[in-house]
């Protein structure tokens, strides 16, 4: 006779799963892990950067001289202030000020688009110079061996980052609409918090790219 492991023990009326606070904990934890994976994604690019910086030290020191430091720095300001706006938006929605929150999100979106426009202007200049990645590299003012790798990394790193900004803008727009429609408010705002975390991540990554590529 197989052993049935006793009767089924059951806690009457206990409901640990599915209540709102445990769902929020889960959402936050999930987002933190996701952010960790994003960091690791960029870690590959930073590794490659370190590797080639060791291989071509002079090139990577001269590289930033061929960048538009003003535009890069301007973009840093844009992104950092947008990050502050998002934090304010989260605070506002927690306090029940849905409309203020949506307005702040709208401003953030504008900043995000400004960032992308400035980036596009920079890219256009690189294209005119011929400072393109890899096989297409034809920038005569900076022709040392390894210079193409510097620019390849520049394009990949800022490009992957720009894709994240673009996704972030999309996320923020949806959050703004959901706040305006009354779906997010003082009682339920987890998605907005998560979206805010994502935007901070995008900001923090840029804070590493900026010194490595523009200042060095």
């Amino acid at each position, binding site marked *: *006779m*197989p*052993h*049935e*492991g006793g*009767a*089924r*023990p*059951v*806690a*009457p009326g*206990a*409901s*640990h*799963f*599915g209540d709102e606070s*445990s769902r929020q*904990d*889960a959402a936050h*934890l*999930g987002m933190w*892990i*996701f952010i*960790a*994976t*994003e960091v*690791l*994604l*960029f*870690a*590959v*690019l930073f*590794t*490659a950067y370190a*590797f*080639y910086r060791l*291989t*071509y030290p002079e090139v990577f020191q001269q590289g930033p001289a061929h960048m538009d430091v003003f535009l890069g720095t301007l973009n840093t300001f844009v992104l950092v202030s947008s990050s502050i706006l998002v934090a304010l938006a989260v605070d506002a929605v927690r306090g029940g000020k849905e409309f203020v929150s949506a307005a702040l999100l709208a401003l953030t979106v504008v900043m995000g688009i400004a960032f992308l426009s400035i980036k596009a202007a920079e890219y256009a200049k690189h294209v005119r110079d011929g400072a393109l*990645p*890899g*096989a*297409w*590299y034809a920038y005569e003012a900076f022709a040392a*061996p*390894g210079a*193409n*790798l510097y620019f*390849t*990394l520049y394009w*990949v790193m800022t490009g*992957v980052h720009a894709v994240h900004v673009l996704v972030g803008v999309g996320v923020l727009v949806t959050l703004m609409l959901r706040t305006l429609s009354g779906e997010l408010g003082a009682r339920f705002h987890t998605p907005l918090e998560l979206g805010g975390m994502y935007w901070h991540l995008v900001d923090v990554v840029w804070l590493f790219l900026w010194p490595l590529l523009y200042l060095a």
Partner: protein
Amino acid sequence: MAPSHDEGAPLGPSYLDAERGLWSWLTTHDHKRIGVMFLAVLLLMFLLGGVFALALRVELLTPGETVMGRLAYNRAFTVHGVVMVWLFLIPSIPASFGNFLLPLMLGARDVAFPRLNLASFYLYVLGAVMTLWGIFQGGVDTGWTFYTPYSTATGRDLLPVLVGVFVVGFSTILTGINFITTVHTMRAPGITWMKVPLFVWALYGTSIIQVLATPVLGMVLVLVALERVAGAGLFDPARGGDPLLYQHLFWFYSHPAVYIMVLPGMGVISETVCAFSRKRPFSYRVIVWSTVGIAFVGFLTWGHHMFVSGQSTFGAGAFSLLSMLVAIFTAMKIFTWLGTLYRGSLWVSTPFAYVLGFIFLLFFGGMSGVAVAVTSADLHWHDTYFVVAHFHFIMVGASLMAFLAALHYWFPKMWGRRYPEGMGIGTAVLIIFGFIATFLPQFLLGNQGMPRRYADYPESFQPLHVASTAGASLLGFGFVIVAIYLGWSLRYGSVAGRNPWGSEGYEWLSDSPPPEFNFHAPPIFPRPPHEYGPPRADGEVDHAA
């Protein structure tokens, strides 16, 4: 065995009957149904990879061209490797049995993010379709490792495959996030960390590796894709890049990935060893901490794939030592399983047969790993069939044995039916024997200098190749039998009852098959998992098979 008694009739419809129709499956958020769908697709992938494996073995039956040319051979081993590693082994146990069982074992209704779970399934399917389409239309011939500079120089169209594997990786990451979050936030009251079932611990360790390593792989694939599209030059010496950087980044993922494949298997074994020796684990804590240890050290060993790449002596020595550390953790695990078996009331059943196969193959494969981790020995064996045999022993021998053990152990749980036990045990013996016959000769071949990835070889190697092909045929035959009797049992097997193995695992507290939300009422867990009573004094076995 007669259907066992349950306390009364089931209280509600099972997850299989809760809703009907194909659409209800394709849109389900139920982790059990998602697990079953994963299982179905994974088995399909295994079939595909297996067919190509047999094709390779047929080509190697005789020296010279047997059934395919050299280019065709290169493409065939690429299909085999890509399908087996990326599309079958890496997702296998976590995506199928992990999805099905993890919430059940934690007394939860579902995973933390059910919709994300379904998204993960569709991402996997999308990635798999893209990968397969890419391989077949592009005639990819790089092998599963996509080594540069060959992968950036070959005339084959690699892009869809890179994107496909990237998408599959994304699915893996989502599953990992889901599992970690579930373990942290969805444990039923009473399940403290030290009461988490061992299979869940293994899945937890696996998920951490998945979440930490897969993004690295994803980015590397993006870089290789860029290299092909834009001539990015990062891995191309002609443009100042370095192909070795690719290998570092690739193995930084892929070595931990081998533990993604084997850790869940170790979890399965920890569960089944307890169930079939009717004893509590020899040391729960050692099993848990060695799981964590493997997950951690697995990240520090990638350099042993590059001993012959001109690595510094110091680097090689360090990687060699760190690799041995993994072997120590693995040995601790083997020790705990043997300790659990020792003086247990062993129940020789089909899952148990696979458990024994697993322990033997893991031990043998692990020892061969230690052998190749010795730098001087690896100079001799690198890129020969010795390595092929090593990783097949571990990846196929151990992971696949565990997969089969899981398939048989949880079959009654998933379907509420049993399969013919005699058939099961007989086939298990056949499969284990076929496996050894296939891969043992490859150690000898490698030692004599047969290089991997060659379609041709000198006359003198033929006997060993014939033995290997014969073993592979037995293996293939064994799988066909498994498919037949399990398929038959789905419909005609005897009804299993709630807990046909008399297991103490938490998942068996629910009905078999479980109801839609796992438990009719939230369960409480007053005892640790795997809490089998003390062995009876008369040595009588507390079960009947």
